[in-house]
């Protein structure tokens, strides 16, 4: 594992000048993931903030070849690129010793919901590629609509909090565990707030022979209604409260990467700074916080059992 000073020698593969909002978590995720390999990389992205903001014609922020795809087919496109690369290699058109890495990015909308079948297919077919989901918990690009990743109770434009409803009534789906169920060589959950853990996981994911998946917590200041400067801090709180546990599944071995010595912090600390949970703190809505906490506790206990930790 490289130190931060060693990492600083690496080539910057995402330039400034992209049009993501100030304080966006997505570009932090991309930068940290791309530090995970020195090999040439081909990247692609599902439709979403990351795609439209990093490549508004005639500009691209990518220092790597980049492929623009539709919402649902980031994984399918990248699996095709990997297939083409293998074919060219067989024919000697790409030198045998040249090893290119393939990575597909997608937001939670393009991964949990719209791109799920193409992702599942690419992983099942065993392509040697990495898929990275930057999870900000809603369709932020189109105006903060709820997604399968939106947490319980979060207010979005399609699950507003008001007199009738109190944010999204359902709990979020656990995509990382769905991907682990594909029995691929490497699956991990990481957060931009824990760069060392994330770069380490990206290194493992790029190095593995076969499909790999990383789900990265990438807060969105606009959608979460948090101040711009808080992006990394709130991602850290997501981890420390157990809302977003850091773990990895390597060849079927589950491993918890972060277990606070003093136990988890109450979820209130994660919820309170976010405008999308403002209604949780209205008098009479205490049960929402309790419900959120009990969901987090239940998932945490289940995960600990799977990872074989007390």
């Amino acid at each position: 594992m490289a130190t931060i000073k060693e990492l600083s020698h690496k080539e910057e593969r995402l330039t400034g000048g992209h049009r993501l909002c100030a304080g966006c978590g997505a570009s932090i995720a991309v930068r940290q993931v791309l530090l995970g390999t020195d090999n040439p990389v081909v990247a692609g992205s599902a439709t979403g903030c990351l795609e439209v903001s990093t490549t508004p014609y005639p500009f691209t922020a990518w220092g790597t070849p980049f492929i623009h795809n539709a919402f649902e087919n980031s994984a399918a496109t990248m699996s095709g690129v990997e297939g083409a690369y293998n074919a060219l290699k067989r024919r000697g058109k790409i030198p045998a010793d040249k090893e290119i890495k393939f990575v597909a990015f997608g937001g939670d909308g393009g991964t949990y919901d719209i791109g799920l079948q193409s992702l599942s297919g690419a992983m099942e077919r065993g392509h040697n590629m990495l898929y990275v989901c930057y999870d900000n918990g809603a369709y932020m690009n189109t105006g903060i609509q709820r997604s399968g990743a939106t947490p319980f109770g979060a207010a979005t434009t399609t699950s507003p909090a008001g007199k009738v409803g109190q944010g999204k009534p359902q709990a979020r789906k656990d995509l990382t565990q769905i991907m682990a169920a594909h029995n691929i060589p490497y699956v991990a959950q990481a957060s931009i707030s824990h760069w060392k853990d994330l770069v380490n996981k990206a290194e493992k994911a790029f190095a593995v022979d076969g499909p790999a998946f990383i789900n990265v917590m990438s807060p969105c200041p606009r959608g979460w209604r948090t101040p711009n400067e808080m992006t990394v801090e709130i991602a850290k709180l997501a981890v420390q409260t157990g809302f977003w546990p850091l773990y990895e599944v390597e060849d079927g071995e589950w491993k918890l990467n972060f277990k606070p010595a003093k136990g988890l912090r109450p979820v209130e600390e994660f919820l309170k700074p976010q405008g999308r949970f403002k209604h949780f703190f209205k008098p009479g809505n205490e049960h929402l916080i309790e419900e959120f906490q009990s969901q987090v506790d239940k998932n945490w206990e289940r995960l600990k059992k799977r990872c074989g930790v007390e």
Partner: protein
Amino acid sequence: MSKTKIKTQTKWNIKGIENWGWKKHPLGATIPEAGNAADYKTGGWRSNRPIWDEEKCTNCLICWINCPDSSIRVKDEKWDSFDYDHCKGCGICANVCPTKAITMVEEGGEK
């Protein structure tokens, strides 16, 4: 062999692109120059400007690895400078700095 060889990066001249006819655009609207977004300045978005304090900085580079706009330059493993052409002034660097060596000041204000 020459067909599949990856082209080395060339400067793509997009001067006057607003008035280009369709024949002048690359097929499929591909962008032939990697990372040319660096030519697009987003520094004007900024309402707060990060200021660096050399005395307090320990060169831990936590700001660099957490910058969403790749706007912290590092040279020889040491903090070098802000890229004010692209920094949007989000303030993450000031927020994550363990020694409070970065502070945000209002853009255009006297300081």
